[in-house]
């Protein structure tokens, strides 16, 4: 199907060139990276930018770098590249695991993690991982560079803290220093390509420090601070797990849509939290990092 309206296309070679174009065109410009969301949006919605700025010509944005304990993921790094990166798998296993659950290979070969957070659909699989690792989003415009904490990034369904003229150039994530385990549990309607009906990411250290985040269970992905506060310093037993599950209702606000009802999402989120907590705990000591564990299907 053709795209019914016309637009210009430009492919800058440097970040500076790109931000100058974005400054000139303002809200009439749209950034194109992997395109797996934006081309569908161009076909199916009234979205009609005057110019598409394809950033795939900017080589410096395609790198994964890890130095001094900080991981930098460029805006052009695809989910497949993240999955294949030993650096990511070893040091940031939750990003690896969440990436393996995104869509299918043909999409992951093209779709970028930065594009995922810029599209900012509530079900985004990268949300919980980036929230528990407390990533920074690196944004540049023609007046300079700034960091936005991922906790301030998501402002609503498909809405972010990005401003006119901004280009997200990448993500920065500090490697956690304590020995830890992680787990991302995603519920799809079946095994295979599907958006999350619910997702939960858990990070737990040997000394029982917890970080927990949910996606697809509210307008934006969220950190479950009150559950973390309950669990911090405690090891997991049946009593504490039940208390944690009770608190889930205070953290999430699921809706009913084509994929699931809000009642079902509320119920399954508790089950998933328990499984993710136990799995993350188990992985503190297990060397082999298992592949993702989609419920259902």
């Amino acid at each position: 199907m053709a795209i019914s309206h016309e637009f210009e296309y430009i492919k800058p070679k440097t970040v500076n060139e790109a931000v100058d174009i974005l400054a000139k065109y303002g809200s009439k410009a749209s950034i194109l990276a992997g395109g797996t969301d934006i081309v569908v949006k161009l076909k199916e919605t009234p979205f009609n930018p005057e110019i598409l700025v394809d950033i795939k010509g900017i080589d410096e944005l395609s790198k994964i770098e890890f130095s001094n304990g900080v991981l930098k993921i460029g805006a052009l790094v695809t989910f497949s590249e993240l999955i294949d990166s030993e650096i990511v798998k070893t040091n940031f296993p939750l990003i690896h695991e969440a990436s393996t659950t995104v869509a299918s290979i043909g999409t992951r070969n093209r779709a970028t993690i930065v594009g995922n957070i810029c599209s900012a659909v509530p079900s985004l699989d990268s949300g919980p991982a980036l929230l528990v690792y407390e990533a920074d989003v690196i944004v540049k415009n023609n007046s300079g560079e700034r960091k936005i904490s991922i906790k301030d990034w998501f402002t609503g369904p498909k809405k972010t803290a990005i401003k006119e003229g901004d280009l997200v150039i990448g993500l920065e994530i500090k490697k956690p220093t304590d020995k830890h385990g992680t787990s991302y549990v995603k519920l799809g309607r079946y095994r295979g390509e599907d958006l999350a009906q619910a997702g939960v990411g858990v990070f737990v250290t040997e000394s029982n420090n917890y970080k927990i985040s949910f996606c697809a269970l509210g307008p934006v992905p969220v950190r479950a601070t009150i559950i973390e506060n309950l669990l911090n310093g405690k090891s997991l037993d049946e009593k504490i797990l039940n208390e944690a599950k009770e608190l889930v209702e205070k953290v999430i606000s699921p809706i009913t849509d084509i994929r699931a009802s809000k009642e079902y999402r509320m119920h399954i989120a508790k089950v998933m939290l328990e499984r993710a907590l136990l799995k993350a705990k188990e992985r503190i000591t297990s060397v082999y990092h298992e592949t993702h564990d989609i419920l259902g299907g």
Partner: protein
Amino acid sequence: MSKIHIILNGERRSLHVEPNDILLDVIRDKMGAKSPKCGCDRGDCGACTIFLNGKSVKSCNILAIEADEQEIVTLEGLSENGLTKLQEKFINMNSFQCGFCAPGITIAATELLNHNPNPTLDDVKEALSGNLCRCTGYTPILDAIMSCKK
């Protein structure tokens, strides 16, 4: 109109496209390679899967202009020197009925076998999770791919 170059199945071709032309349409209608099909037209069904710079992608989700100076291989290119072992297995095991999904599935399965000549059934299912088949229930397709194991 912009002039672009695409290396399609080993042959460098020049053509004119509009920025809003979809790669799938251009490959089929302007370049004459008819194996990629338009199914869902939104990146879910995998019928339009091609290799772009050696990686499987959904060509309905890509603008033709993005493919300027890039290398594309479709099913036509894959079997240029005769059928691959995988294709022979697909034929001998009656893997497909209508065949609409076959080009995309062949590309996805070829990518899997190139990277992982000894896949488990789960690996195969994961590799095909972005390709829908409405005829077969998948079993004869999975069987054929599994029979290609080294």
